[in-house]
């Protein structure tokens, strides 16, 4: 019998070699960030006027938020399609999403040049209220992402409130927690609905963003259907992250895995992947770009690599027999995450050609900053699941002195 009650995993945050290394690396990361803010973006990165957006945008923001769509995918499944049996996965998925989006927001603060003005975005450019540009896809992405970060943490609220209610010595905090949990009971619907609406909006618009690059974006990626392609691939990536996350956290924290739920998830993945491939090919053929698939040199190779990364997992999961094998689902999920990631990388970087004379490759410091963002997310994840009731079915909660190994 699986235990569906969420409990903190417990134990110290830095509990093995890996977390020790993480802590040290994060210390180094903070120093690098200080250097970046003191001297400018050009000194730490390979960004140039030809390639103003690099891995901080293409990976940390665009791919990172897509990978953080586990919460989105689970919310659709659990609350919209009413597959109640996914509920134990909701909180860990939400936490990954909340952290993923928060890290994307952090990456944006690191990436933009005049970061001290970012507060103007949510406040409508206050006090200069007329400054919103509704033509800009980036405005919509920025507002949606900011709102969604808030919504995600609000959705996670019950985890924090439960812990405070159960263990806090501060009676005011306990009172607040009780009140908060009652509020959630009533308002959860509208919060969750937002949590489904917002990613739908901005994940598709992340694709629309690159259309403004015009002729600089290669024909195989530049299409009016890009918002839909981004949305579909994001849904696939979200499911894949849930599978992967469930598998990994069950190993690390010694908890039971929800195989039956995950196996039925994978059936949906086949449809999602198939839809993506169909739409992609249909658009290319109908707009007369068929030859581009073969005549674009390196970009042709990248295109077919993307297609393969979408098609192979689709084939892997087509038969119910294969879906029943968790190892197969796990492998397919990793391929799907790679597929969506590569698609985004290509549309933001590889297939973006500003003209002759420009090239881009991230510098060492730029890569370390990205790795630091990821490490920070992992660190926070570990911290929160150890302190707050996120994961359910953890044997660790039942064995007080248990200390796991990575």
């Amino acid at each position: 019998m699986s235990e569906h009650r969420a409990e903190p995993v417990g134990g110290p945050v830095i509990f093995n070699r890996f977390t020790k290394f993480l802590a040290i690396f994060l210390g180094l990361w903070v120093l690098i960030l200080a250097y970046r803010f003191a001297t400018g973006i050009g000194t730490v990165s390979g960004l140039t006027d030809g390639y103003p957006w690099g891995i901080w945008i293409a990976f940390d923001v665009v791919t990172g938020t897509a990978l953080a769509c586990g919460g989105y995918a689970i919310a659709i499944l659990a609350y919209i399609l009413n597959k109640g049996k996914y509920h134990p996965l909701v909180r860990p998925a939400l936490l990954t999403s909340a952290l993923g989006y928060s890290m994307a927001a952090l990456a944006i603060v690191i990436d933009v040049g005049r970061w001290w003005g970012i507060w103007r975005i949510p406040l409508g450019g206050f006090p200069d209220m007329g400054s919103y540009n509704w033509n800009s896809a980036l405005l919509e992405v920025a507002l949606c992402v900011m709102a969604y970060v808030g919504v995600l943490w609000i959705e996670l609220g019950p985890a924090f409130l439960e812990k405070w209610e159960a263990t806090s010595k501060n009676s005011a905090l306990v009172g607040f927690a009780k009140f908060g949990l009652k509020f959630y009971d009533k308002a959860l619907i509208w919060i969750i609905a937002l949590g489904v609406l917002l990613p739908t909006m901005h994940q598709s618009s992340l694709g629309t963003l690159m259309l403004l690059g015009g002729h600089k974006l290669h024909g195989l990626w530049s299409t009016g259907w890009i918002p839909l392609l981004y949305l579909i691939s994001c849904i696939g990536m979200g499911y894949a992250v849930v599978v992967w996350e469930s598998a990994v956290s069950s190993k690390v924290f010694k908890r039971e895995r929800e195989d039956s739920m995950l196996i039925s998830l994978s059936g949906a993945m086949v449809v999602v992947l198939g839809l993506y491939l169909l739409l992609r090919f249909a658009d290319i053929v109908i707009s007369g770009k068929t030859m581009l698939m073969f005549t674009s040199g390196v970009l042709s190779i990248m295109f077919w690599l993307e297609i393969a990364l979408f098609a192979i997992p689709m084939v892997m999961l087509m038969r119910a027999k294969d879906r029943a094998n968790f190892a197969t689902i796990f492998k397919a999920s990793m391929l799907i995450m790679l597929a969506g990631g590569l698609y985004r990388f290509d549309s933001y970087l590889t297939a973006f050609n500003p003209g002759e004379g420009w090239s881009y490759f991230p510098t060492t410091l730029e890569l370390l900053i990205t790795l630091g963002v990821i490490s920070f997310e992992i660190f926070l994840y570990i911290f929160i699941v150890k302190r707050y009731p996120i994961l359910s079915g953890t044997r660790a909660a039942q064995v007080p002195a248990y200390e796991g190994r990575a």
Partner: protein
Amino acid sequence: MGRRDERLGVPDGSPQEEGLGRRDFVKACMMAAAAVGLPASAGLKWAEAAEAGLKPSVIWLHFQECTGCTESLLRTSSPGIAELILDLVSLDYHETLFAAAGYQIEEALHQAMEAHAGQYVCVVEGAIPRKDGGIYCQIGGRTAIDILEDVASKAAAVVAIGSCASWGGIPSADPNPTDAVGAPQILEGTTVVTIPGCPANPYNFLGTVLQFVALGSLPALDDKGRPLFAYGRTIHEHCPRRAHFDAGRFARQFGDEGHRLGYCLFALGCKGPETHANCSTLSFGEMPDAWPIGIGHPCFGCTEQGVAFHKPLHQEAALPENAVPPIHPDHRTSPSAAAAGVAGLVGGAVVGAGLMASKKMAEGGNEEGSS
């Protein structure tokens, strides 16, 4: 000058006859060396050679010329220096400066060529006509072509002074009725040092000849035989009015506000950008600003074939392109080894972790799962 007349043709005579002490003489030689851009050791060598009575012979030929280059050379004197320099060489044939004429001077030429065969410096002033066998310039019944080929054949070095001798100069201006060309075009295959200019700046000539005399070598030359130390840059690169050019301040008419303020003369047809010379940095006659731009007239490119006596004075010059970037400048960078290494490591780690994870998942697959 009287003294010089006596000595000419009589290659003997010590500077000490002038009453200069030896130390002053050596000092003067070293200053002269500095003046033409040679090291002080060259000056020392001259002094030694002069004392030993070893004065290299110079045979100076005149053809289609105005004698302006000779005149320009004569005006290099700060008192005494010019004479010293002329005392450092033995001028064995010079039609303008010699008192002798006719058969006498031709005999002097013949003797000098025999006595110093293979050792003298042949200086050429003036263009050489080629039309109709070269009959349009003859001296003593011989064509300029013949004389030049004869004298140059036994010379240790050939130096063409002035634009006429360097590439044809004024006589070669359209329609060039005598088919006038410079010495290099007659002496193909021989290294001819050219010192173009109209007139040539005498210090460019002196520096070249005296280096040869002192060190036995010629200065570095460009593909037209011009010494790089003097002709390596264009007037435009060294012009005192360049700042005005760069800022877009131009004189548009002689006498206008810009002209009075000394603005750039490019709009008036200055050929500075197309002309290789050093007039802006080495004055004529030791007078600062004694050159066209210095007095407010655009340079007409007197050293440069195809510009002087060819392009109209007030036609705009072509600008060099080396300062203008191409349409697509190269901003590419390649990844540092460290960055490539980190990226590779991360990529490898991701792939490796994925493979390992799926292997572990396949092995322990049904242990942890619930159904």
